[in-house]
């Protein structure tokens, strides 16, 4: 029977030649990992809608041309970019600054950090074969993912963050990723966070860039959360309106650790945020939330894999999508409960509010269960704002637009409420309000 062979797209051919061109500059050990990742990627090519995991987000169609990796920006360019950055601006936090995917050392707090917290630029660590590099890519399924493979293959910069056992870092660490310039570029950054037993840290991430610029950021966050450790994470995507933004979180949770992560998307023409969570230890508590507020032409994809491999894990996953214009929202969530993971309690929910007739929402909340003593549930809803609720508010004198905004805020707010860091929570709510104000 006839086999259908995909022709290679110009983007795929382009990526291959970009990879060949950049090969010379690699070190030995990393070169092998990159080579391997790229060969895997190359064999399958850019994922199209025929690939189940990319059914609703056709990267093959969206990424028409391969975009060259960004050069490191000049000092002035970096200064200008930072001056206009808005994500989590003004919050009291230690900061690491990435402009076009390159760590800008003189604009980053690499020294003077609280005791127990160390930050090493990834390029320094790679040169010295840092032992922590072995902690990279902690979740198997992430390593098989084409977006993550591309990140590995083109990895240009990043950071290793370590929190010593028993240290509770009060002040948040803010990673700001800023795109700037006028030429198309791509980035591939990797941040590794290694949290020792009983340690705590709050990590904020903001991603932004100018409108109209077609750039392709691809960032990955690898996290190991030690026993009884706590990892709090808030991520804000306010990329420019022509960006294709790909991101992956790959997190391994040890005994009795706690994860709290939220991702708010307002930017990028196409974004895909992937979370690979591996519950390796017992009695883990994980809160994974996401919110997307989308306007004309945007597509935002949240893909989650929660893999429970140990007893007693609690998972709460809540995703909220607000769709305006002809935007498309995608949620793909999958909870796996392995045979050993008895007494797992997993709840996954994806809700969508459609504000226009042209918008669309694709939901795929999956369960894969092999243990018989678990309580797992998933829910998905989709619809327009409730007329009764609107009427209630309008009957109290609010104009329709205000009433609708209020409902939308309450709807999205649910996913943001879990953010423990007050400043970050306020900043995210500010983003939601700004989105609603711009719409009105």
């Amino acid at each position, binding site marked *: *029977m006839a086999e259908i062979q995909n022709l290679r797209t110009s983007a795929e051919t382009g990526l291959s030649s970009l990879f060949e061109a950049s090969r010379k500059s690699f070190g030995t050990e990393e070169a092998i990992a990159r080579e391997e990742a790229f060969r895997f990627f190359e064999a399958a090519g850019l994922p199209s809608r025929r690939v189940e995991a990319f059914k609703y987000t056709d990267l093959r169609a969206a990424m028409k041309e391969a975009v060259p990796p960004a050069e490191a920006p000049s000092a002035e360019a970096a200064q200008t970019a930072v001056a206009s950055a808005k994500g989590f601006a003004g919050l009291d936090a230690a900061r690491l600054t990435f402009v076009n995917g390159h760590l800008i050392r003189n604009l980053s707090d690499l020294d003077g950090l609280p005791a127990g917290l160390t930050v090493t630029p990834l390029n320094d660590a790679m040169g010295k074969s840092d032992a922590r590099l072995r902690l990279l890519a902690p979740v198997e399924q992430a390593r098989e993912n084409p977006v993550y493979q591309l990140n590995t293959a083109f990895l240009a910069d990043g950071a290793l963050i370590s929190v010593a056992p028993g240290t509770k870092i009060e002040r948040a660490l803010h990673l700001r990723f800023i795109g700037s310039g006028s030429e198309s570029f791509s980035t591939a950054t990797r941040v590794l966070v290694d949290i020792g037993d009983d340690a705590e840290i709050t990590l904020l991430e903001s991603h932004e860039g100018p409108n109209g610029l077609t750039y392709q950021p691809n960032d990955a966050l690898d996290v190991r959360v030690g026993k009884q450790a706590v990892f709090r994470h808030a991520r804000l995507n306010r990329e420019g309106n022509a960006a294709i933004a790909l991101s992956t979180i790959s997190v391994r949770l040890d005994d009795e650790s706690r994860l709290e992560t939220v991702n708010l998307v307002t930017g990028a023409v196409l974004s895909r945020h992937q979370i690979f969570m591996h519950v390796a230890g017992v009695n883990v508590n994980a809160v994974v939330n996401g919110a997307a507020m989308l306007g004309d032409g945007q597509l935002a994809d949240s893909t989650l894999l929660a893999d429970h491999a140990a007893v007693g894990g609690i998972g709460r996953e809540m995703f909220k999508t607000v769709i305006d214009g002809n935007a498309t929202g995608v949620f793909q969530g999958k909870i796996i409960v392995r045979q050993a993971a008895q007494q797992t309690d997993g709840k996954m929910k994806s809700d969508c509010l459609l504000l226009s007739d042209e918008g669309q929402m*694709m939901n795929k909340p999956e369960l894969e269960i092999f243990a018989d003593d678990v309580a*797992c549930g998933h829910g998905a809803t989709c619809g327009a704002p409730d007329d009764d609720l609107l009427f209630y508010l309008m009957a109290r004198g609010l104009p329709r637009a205000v009433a609708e905004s209020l409902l939308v805020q309450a709807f999205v707010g649910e996913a943001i409420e879990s953010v423990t860091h007050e400043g970050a929570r306020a900043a995210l709510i500010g983003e939601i309000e700004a989105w609603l104000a711009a719409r009105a």
Partner: protein
Amino acid sequence: MPAVQETIDRVRSIDLDQYKYGFETTIEMEKSAKGISEDVVRFISAKKNEPAWLLEWRLDAYRRWLTMKEPEWARVSYDKVDYSDIYYYAAPKRPAAMSLDEIDPEILKTYEKLGIPLREVEVLEGIAPERRVAVDAVFDSVSVATTFKKELSKAGVIFMPISEAVQEYPELVQKYLGTVVPSTDNFFATLNSAVFSDGSFVYIPPGVRCPMELSTYFRINERDTGQFERTLIIADKGSYVSYLEGCTAPKRDDNQLHAAVVELVALDDAEIKYSTVQNWYPGDNEGKGGIYNFVTKRGDCRGDRSKISWTQVETGSAITWKYPSCILRGDESRGEFYSIAVSNGMQQVDSGTKMIHLGKNTTSRIISKGISAGRSQNTYRGLVSAHKKAKNARNFTNCDSLLIGDQCGAHTVPYIESKNASAVFEHEATTSKISEDQKFYCLQRGLSEEEATALIVNGFVRDVLQQLPMEFAVEAQKLISISLEGSVG
């Protein structure tokens, strides 16, 4: 929470070792040449004395099938079928029977053993239970008997083997055949289009409420054969029909293929209720033998205010690949899917439904209950989609799964695609959404929360199952009392 003992016992009582229908009937059969080729397709068509257009349709499907690949996306793994090593046509050698007395007594005995009433007279004389069901009995590739034909024709209802309908009502068959499941639809449906041998044809004229339930009983008997039946049901404007389907097969060590196609068409204000008790031989506890059940079932709510409802009780087959679907084309049309799938031993089930909302104010409801035991894998896979024009589409989905033992798996793969703001879709996998009022009523009378939940849900399912005729009731009755305790999403 784990399953309670009562549930475990009940599931065990319908265990594989208890398969009661595994006997074989020895009878002389006529078969096509082994394997598939244009000649075999022509042979089947000639056997049925088919018109040229149908032969052409079959050959087209066959040629297309040659270019297709067997689907691999379902969560099942099995030894691939060797399509050149099966018989695509097998029929009892005796000439077609004009009356019941002419049917090979061996076949009659077979159906008696299965508890299928082929003798109308008994029913009329009140010996058998009062329930009257017209039966079309399909034995391997051909229909051997159809009961109550005369009485049905008085009401204008056409109920006959599809091979006869091709002769007697060619224009009706040609008008509707392949309009719901086109011959290009998928690998198995295309194969079926090329080699389908028999199946039932039902036409209910406008405004007629079919005076009795119609049913088809499928029996695979011959070794190394595949069964490829095709059922076509048309409910004309304002009519109603309830149709039941049952199936069994002998116990054998090798796998046999069953690739059927069912097409339903409901015109304005019509309603079709389609119920299945699927009890093909599931293989033994080690996964040896059993039927591969690769079936395409689809209903088209073509007319406004039409309704199609699928009910299935799935206990058999080694591998199940089956997604009875509704295309809600007419405005205010309604689709329903109620399913209980029990897997045991090494069985693998990948089943679910599709509700495709195209018309305005269309509604659909999906209730699915999967129970896996032994080392089986049970997957619910479903799609609910609302087209841009499907204003006010409404869907409610509830799927529960229950695991008994830690060697099996239960999986849920729902796809919910909404392209319309006025569409309201709800999907949930917990039992908490049962009407709070009903629950409160039960709790007030001293039932525990679990008992109340089980009572309400089972009461609901029972409604549907009670539509099934007595002869299918054995498994179904056992199943309905399985409680929902310990169910997981």
